[in-house]
């Protein structure tokens, strides 16, 4: 399973390195979202600083939709899905590999967005450790849930419109928990928030969806 996961993750990341879709399209989109928030809210009145954590995670969520769609699209064309089913790869391995590739791309994106928030919103980070812990837990959860819904919607003609409707309500707790957990660290404001519970919630979310994916990805692959 782990060997298969490494193979699939390597394949997805190699494709990304060569095609640069995430780098050339998803990353600029994510930064654009940050800029749009600044247009919508008044950048001069500390609104952005106070809302920075929430805006950061909304940007991550929206970008993760694109990343997941791209990841699923890799399998949808050229009969890849069929050959994958015929290959002796463990479905659990395929799931973990694809989720790992998405997670890695999201992590890079989050670093970029973090720099964006610091530069554009003028926030002062404090508590980098909390930030990293939140980002890891949230990213794993997003990648796991996203990969599951990605393959669920992959074969459908309406996937572009259906995926956000399916995925966003499911990852709503990630948005809430990640925002609360990273609020104090990301905005540099002293807030009365204890990140411990939120981090645990993020971890539970990630474990649930990873476990579900390991068990059920094979069945999900069958029907597309």
């Amino acid at each position, binding site marked *: 399973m782990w060997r298969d996961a490494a193979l699939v993750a390597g394949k997805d990341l190699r494709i990304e390195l060569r095609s640069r879709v995430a780098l050339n399209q998803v990353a600029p989109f994510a930064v654009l979202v940050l800029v749009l928030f600044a247009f919508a809210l008044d950048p001069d009145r500390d609104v952005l600083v106070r809302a920075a954590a929430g805006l950061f995670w909304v940007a991550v969520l929206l970008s993760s939709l694109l990343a997941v769609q791209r990841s699923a699209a890799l399998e949808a064309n050229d009969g890849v899905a069929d050959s994958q089913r015929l290959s002796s790869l463990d479905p659990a391995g395929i799931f973990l590999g694809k989720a790992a590739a998405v997670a890695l791309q999201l992590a890079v994106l989050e670093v970029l967005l973090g720099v964006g928030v610091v530069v554009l919103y003028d926030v002062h980070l404090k508590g980098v450790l909390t930030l990293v812990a939140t980002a890891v837990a949230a990213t794993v959860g997003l990648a796991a849930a996203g990969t599951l819904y990605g393959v*669920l919607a992959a074969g459908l003609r309406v996937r572009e419109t259906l995926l956000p409707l399916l995925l966003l309500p499911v990852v709503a707790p990630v948005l809430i928990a990640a925002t609360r957990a990273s609020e104090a660290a990301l905005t540099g404001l002293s807030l009365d*928030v204890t990140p411990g519970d939120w981090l645990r919630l993020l971890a539970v979310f990630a474990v649930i969806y990873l476990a579900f994916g390991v068990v059920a990805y094979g069945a999900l692959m069958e029907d597309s």
Partner: protein
Amino acid sequence: MNTRNTGRRGTGTAVTMTLGIAALASLAATYAVGLSLPRTYEQGDYSKLIAIHPGIAWASYVAFGVTALASALWLWPRTRSLAWDLLAGASAEVGVLFTALTLITGSIWGRPTWGAWWVWDARLTLSALELMLLLGYLALRRVPADSEVRARRSALAALLAVLVVPVNHYAVQWWRTLHQGGSLSLTPKDALDGKFIFAMVLGFLAMTLVYAWLTVHRFRVAQLEEDLVDDDLDAALEARRREAVTA
């Protein structure tokens, strides 16, 4: 052309007729009892909503639960049957109705009580998320596919959505209570006297019966639709065979 003459079959039987009468009668009783409740000092006439709002919310949870259970039964190889898939879909559709009604009646109650149509209370937020999950599930069901494929896809999607409910529950609970404390409570616990409890229980009963009644009929309509697809296929096959014979 239809070999099974589906046109004449309805969705009612003696059992559903009884169920329907019971549902309507209990609904009428709830209406009468609810309106006869006394005005309360804090909420005036609005407290009469206790007859229907908790019952509707309860029915929406039942619908969600039945969809989850039926999906699990479809996935379990020993109990796999198309009926479970159709039941899951029927229950989800009726569930959307009840979840939306929960939000609507809740808003009508919330406006005079809290001063706003919507407050970001944990339970309201959870209900809104559940509505979105159900809508996504139904959108997925509506994507044309072979019934076996659709059943597997929907069953897995339903379980995925159910998994998130406890996480959602804690997320919104902490989100709202860490900040402002448990200042909002949907049921006026201290002030409930016998009449109100009676009206509420009657409402639970009525809404459960209405849910069951609607779901049974919706389930049977879905079965008829499946039969119709089969019949059309049979008819098409038959036509081709005749062509082959005459040619």
